[in-house]
């Protein structure tokens, strides 16, 4: 059964190795923990998941597996009466009494009510996440277990809350598959500099100064050379960008590993007066775009990633944003960004063929002075060549 769990995690694209699996088995064999689901969840996490940005994926995989075991018998089309029976288990004694009085209709009413709560809870905020293939909505919107999760139930289910809370979600930058080509393309953007601590022996200087020192050794060191290019990335999220999540994540992963100085902000459709760094807290924690304009000097390279697909009003009109009332049009903010960082490009995941049919793409291309490139290896290479000039 555990071996199923192992492959289940791997199916959910968690990089679990055999070695780690054996560690987990060893831990279980030695009776490290009380035999409860909670402790198993924690132990398996400590042994198998080595990055907190993967916790979310682990939580989802674990929840799915747990549900799989629980609902092992009825797989796809759950008969309604079975659902109702499950639902009954989650009722409080008072509710049960009420049902006995009012009968089936009352039960259905309560059931629907619970189901609606359930749907809302599932949809809340999840529009913003997504990791390639596995949709957060998945599993057909609701499922029998959902009800039990919604209603407080037996004590041993507390763990469900832990993995259903899903506290870690942002763009996942761990997409390794296919990032290599992007990395190679991004590698064109390099600016070597010697800075930081002295680490390398400077042979010429050492010989010269030892000679000057009457033959007594005088070591001379220089700092190592490394890529010191600074990159500011603005990423469009949500809405039409949902179609491109896979590719953008690949790009983002590659950028994360290539650029030591990388700052990332998010926007929706078009940058306006505030941006955010975490989609989970995007309503509470916003950064004034003016602050960002001042904080990073012209040495930074600006990479905007977005499909530029929106209504032209969102670019041209004050108050055109779909989310809030913006005093100044997006185009003005775009120009400010371009003035602050002359070295800037726009990467567009939409296929190039469709660009000329979209008015908003044409507008932004114009604002960007044609520096809009597709998110392909060739497009990236062109973009990086321009940025490193």
């Amino acid at each position, binding site marked *: 059964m555990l071996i199923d769990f192992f492959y289940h995690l791997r199916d959910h694209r968690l990089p679990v190795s055999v070695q*780690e699996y054996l560690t987990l088995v060893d*831990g279980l064999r*030695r009776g*490290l923990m009380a035999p409860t689901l909670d402790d198993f969840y924690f*132990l398996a996490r400590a042994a198998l998941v080595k990055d*907190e940005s993967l916790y979310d994926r682990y939580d989802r995989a674990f929840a799915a597996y747990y549900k799989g075991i629980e609902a092992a018998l009825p797989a796809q089309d759950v008969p309604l009466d079975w659902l109702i029976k499950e639902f009954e288990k989650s009722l409080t004694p008072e509710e049960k009494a009420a049902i006995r009085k009012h009968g089936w209709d009352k039960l259905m009413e309560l059931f629907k009510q619970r189901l609606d709560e359930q749907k809302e809870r599932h949809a809340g905020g999840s529009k913003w996440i997504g990791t390639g293939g596995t949709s957060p909505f998945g599993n057909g919107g609701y499922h029998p277990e959902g009800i039990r999760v919604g209603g407080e139930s037996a004590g041993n289910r507390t763990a469900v809350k832990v993995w259903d809370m899903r506290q870690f979600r942002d763009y996942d930058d761990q997409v390794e598959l296919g990032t290599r080509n992007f990395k190679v393309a991004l590698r064109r953007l390099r600016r070597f500099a010697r800075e930081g601590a002295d680490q390398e022996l400077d042979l010429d200087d050492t010989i010269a100064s030892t000679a000057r020192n009457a033959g007594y050794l005088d070591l001379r060191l220089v700092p190592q050379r490394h890529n010191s290019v600074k990159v500011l990335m603005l990423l469009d999220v949500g809405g039409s960008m949902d179609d491109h999540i896979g590719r953008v994540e690949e790009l983002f992963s590659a950028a994360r590993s290539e650029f030591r100085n990388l700052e990332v902000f998010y926007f929706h459709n078009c940058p306006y007066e505030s941006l955010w760094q975490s989609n989970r807290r995007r309503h509470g924690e916003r*950064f004034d775009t003016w602050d960002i304009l001042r904080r990073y000097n012209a040495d930074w390279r600006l990479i905007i990633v977005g499909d530029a697909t929106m209504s032209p009003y969102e670019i041209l009109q004050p108050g055109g944003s779909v989310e809030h009332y913006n005093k100044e049009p997006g185009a003005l903010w775009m120009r400010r960004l371009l003035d602050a960082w002359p070295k800037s490009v726009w990467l567009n995941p939409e296929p190039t063929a469709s660009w000329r049919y979209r008015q908003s793409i044409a507008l932004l291309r114009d604002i960007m002075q044609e520096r809009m490139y597709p998110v392909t290896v060739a497009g990236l290479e062109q973009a990086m060549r321009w940025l490193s000039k």
Partner: protein
Amino acid sequence: MSATSSPAQPARFEGTDRYVATDDLKLAVNAALTLQRPLLIKGEPGTGKTMLAEEVARALGRPLLQWHIKSTTKAQQGLYEYDAVSRLRDSQLGDEKVRDIRNYIVQGTLWQAFEAEQPVVVLIDEIDKADIEFPNDLLRELDRMEFHVYETRQTVAARHRPLVIITSNNEKDLPDAFLRRCFFHYIRFPDRDTMRDIVAVHFPQLKQDVLRAALDTFFALRDAPGLKKKPSTSELLDWLRLLLAEDATAAQIDAHAATAVPLMAGALLKNEQDLHLLERLAAMTGGGQRR
């Protein structure tokens, strides 16, 4: 459970009177202890990563050996160093010591841990500060708990496998091969209830209303947008120490919180820009109230 375990079994870590450990953290420590593998701890700065190692050592009654990593630290330095430069200098000065190479082998933290009479706890602090290859260079040493000294042709093997606790601030990604050999735990920022427990452990004498007011201010400040360095647990504890010393009341704290700049904000915010930001905010909200 720990009370009934016989001395032959490895001791378990159950938290201490000075350190509030969550269940998953305890489990991770005990897993590392039982299976004798390194434990990698990540988390926001100031959530008690380094403190954990100290408290684990104290709870288990083992000595703690600390190895603080800097950007220039090399893996070899944890094992031993051959001080060639001073040997060269001694040879030029004609010192007798120069004939024996062992005089110039300097033991590192791991060597000391391996040779210790009793099991120890080793803390490798902020491993992400070092070069990218650093963890890879320690793979075999941490796996087998032994290494070879080329200069003297001897092999140093651990008498007792030490409990290795490694902390990281996530400045660099660690290599997969290294991660596979570790247990991993991410210390999440404590929620309000856990924070109350933590404060109670450090300041049992603190009044309830002062604690309430202080926590209100603290969590509001953490939610403030745009701060460069959010105050963490260690800053909160420093701040409470100050509040206690000044004998501040809950009313005073609340009054200051309403103006957006907390009482003695310098203890919570270590960054000048953050302080300015708050003052600007205070000016804005103050204006809003007057209107």
